């Protein structure tokens, strides 16, 4: 059998010694992302976990130029860097905006929307850990329906459904949007590779489990990430030009309860809550299937079985 991840066996673009928590999903994600982009990349990071993870002054982990930006400006700063590089003739250099869900769904949305609307040539990747984890697990626009955070305690869990960032980005008709998660590293890698070859604003939404914030054991990161996909909660799909939708992998349709069971932030859920959420999930997945069918004429071409 030997090594099953040929593409991913490359020199790391980041050094160890990073300050992420044990089992951090976002660091697993950035490893694959940077392997796909290579060292000829400049990264902008707004306020988020990664401002800390990258290391304390005067040390940092990434072996590429790394710009800390203000919370709302990851996309705008990236656009500026792109323009500067273009002017100086560095057309091959990739510009990546790497932002958390706070800096994407909430605070950075205006800048992101502006960039997407004018189809600036950057790759924007949101690693979504579903709350403001870095500052102490406050609710964000990405926090799931009925989930616990420190600002939405068990007595009054999050009342609003998670903002659908992919639909927002689709409305901008940008060339490429994809969802990915850390349990499927090759899928993430290939999506970044594909995005790298395209021009214009490209957006990838990466679900990155956060063991402390999700109230779970650190070794469960991958398991939970995989369950998020297999329960249809977080389907893996791509959207090209805002229209053509492709589901990459057909989930095993595991009941959502299995996903909730592993995480303390959902432990207060009652049976009817779970039922309600399951229905929401089913409805959305049905919608995706329909769109896949509209694009491809069939749903039989969706990969089943072991997916990486």
């Amino acid at each position, binding site marked *: 059998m030997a090594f099953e991840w040929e593409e991913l066996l490359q020199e790391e673009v980041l050094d160890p*010694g990073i300050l992420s928590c*044990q089992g951090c999903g976002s660091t697993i994600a950035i490893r694959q992302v940077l392997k796909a982009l290579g060292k000829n990349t400049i990264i902008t990071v707004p306020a988020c976990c990664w401002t800390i993870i990258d290391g304390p002054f005067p040390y940092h982990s990434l072996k590429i130029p*790394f710009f800390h930006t203000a919370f709302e400006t990851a996309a705008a700063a990236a656009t500026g860097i792109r323009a500067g590089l273009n002017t100086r003739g560095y057309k091959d250099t990739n510009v990546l905006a790497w932002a958390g869900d706070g800096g994407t769904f909430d605070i950075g949305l205006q800048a992101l929307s502006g960039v997407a609307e004018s189809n600036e040539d950057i790759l924007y990747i949101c690693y979504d850990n579903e709350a403001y984890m870095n500052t102490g697990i406050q609710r964000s626009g990405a926090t799931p329906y009925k989930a616990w955070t420190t600002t939405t305690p068990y007595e009054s869990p999050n009342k609003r459904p998670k903002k659908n960032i992919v639909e927002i980005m689709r409305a901008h008709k940008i060339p490429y949007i994809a969802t990915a998660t850390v349990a499927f590293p090759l899928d993430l890698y290939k999506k970044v590779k594909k995005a790298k070859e395209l021009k214009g604003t490209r957006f990838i939404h990466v679900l990155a489990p956060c063991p402390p914030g999700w109230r779970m054991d650190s070794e469960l990161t991958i398991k939970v990430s995989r369950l998020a996909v297999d329960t249809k909660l977080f389907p893996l799909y791509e959207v090209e030009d805002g229209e053509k939708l492709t589901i990459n992998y057909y989930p095993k349709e595991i009941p959502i309860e299995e996903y909730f069971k592993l995480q303390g932030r959902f432990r207060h859920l009652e049976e009817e809550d779970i039922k309600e959420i399951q229905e929401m999930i089913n409805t959305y997945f049905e919608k995706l299937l329909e769109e896949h069918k509209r694009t491809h004429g069939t749903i039989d071409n969706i990969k089943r079985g*072991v997916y990486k």
Partner: protein
Amino acid sequence: MAERIRYKNIDEIPDVALSTGTTRVLKTGSWRNVKPVIENKAAPCLKACPLGTKIPHYFYWIIEKDLEKAADVLLERNPFPAITGRVCPAFCQIGCNRKRFDERISIRELERYVGDYIIKRGYKIKELPSDTGKRIAVIGSGPAGMAVAYFLRRYGHSVTIFERESKPGGVLRYGIPSYRLPKDILDKEFEMLLNMGIKIETNKELGKDVYLDELRQKFDAVFIGIGAWVEKRMRMEGEENLLSGVHFLKDVNEGKETSKFKGKKVAVIGAGNVAMDVVRTLKRIGAEPCILYRRTEKEMPALEEEREKAKADGIPFHFLTLPIKAENRNGKILLTNQKMKLGEPDKSGRRRPIPIEGSEFQEEYDFVIKAIGEEADRKILPEEYLGEDGWPYADKKTGATKVEGVFAGGDFIQGPSTVVEAEAWAQRAARSIDRFLKGEDINVKEIPPRTVSFMLIRTEYFDKAPAIHPQELSVEERIKSFEEEVKTFSEEMALKEAKRCFSCGYCNSCGNCYVYCPDMSILWKDGKPVVDYDFCKGCGVCASECPRGIIQMVSEI
């Protein structure tokens, strides 16, 4: 190497926050209180195999298409894989973890595939240690004797085998019919063993041509593995009119005339593996055999596989039937049978047969063969070798008899058993003999390896796939000849089947731990994962995502 940055004065500090050093100076490994340990463990198959064959390990080399290495791994524990790959009851397959996912792996067929490769390429043991100058006499060249000679040779000792018959092999040659184990496979396998420098003297029977005392003087150690060839007595009237199952098989295997059985009605008493071999052999030489057994199908001691094949061959089984008298009527045998019913379970856990009064009936046969089990010849050894029960005794763990320098094993000690169990006994005995010759304590305390249970298998990394089964002759074809029934896997089949293996407890370098590590702390060195404890924070993702239970989190406090 990464160094800490120390600014000597304020001018050295950059005007904007500009990080120039690498985080390699931050040894985040100090956050950890549990650490991952990468260590191969025992698969259920490996643990179930009496020989401890490293099954997932040689499968790895089959998949890599490096059969040389597969052969080396296999031969480390098993002297004749082409033989066990054919006749082994495959204890390994029973507990296969894959069984709980879809179907078990055909482990035996893969062993046979590699075994046949070894025969084809010729036998090469990587390197034999230099000669120790110690000489060992082995009596009997069956599975136990041959295996003990093999292992002793690998320890560097010189071995001489004394065999009663004219050819080596014991039960492999004279017991197992050639439709299960062709004679040319046996010859080739043994030829290679003898090429290792094992000497053999045939037509030398213990107590007639060679004597134990004489061997003890001439050699540094002696191993007795003469098998169990004495047919048990039934204690029925007219037992002398019956033929012996093992002797019948021996005659057929020696190529003696069998035409007297052709078209004849033959009853075979017993339902063990020998009985199955006897009826199936009779069928092939044109007789009309049937089985008489005093219990029912459920209590049959024969292996399920053998039983099913005998049934498929069209052999009638008469259950709950006990012959109580055999009379010779003009060359034919008149058998008086009694019908039985099942009572309470006995010592063996099987329900005891109880005669039904007045249910006797008579039936005439041309021949009656008894195959109710064999036992060792208890008269062959002097008193000091016998245990309290009056049977030849040797210690199960070391193979040592009560007499110093004399070891024994195989069916001779444990009673009729399987080839692989005789080999396993030989493996232990060879180690004891080696230690004995070096003057070490022969009692070795063994720590059983940790087993990987199905719970530790991450099934999400495997696709369901049906098991590959070997090609077989159809029933119509096979009952006409002694041609081998089951065929060896083709390369394509072997690859497919080996790839199904979960490789429980054996790291096949899949790379999950490397890819999923959030801290770049699993390094990939020479195709193997290595933990970088300087930076590993002990999150446990690698242990949780290892598909085969190799990584374990160990507390450091």
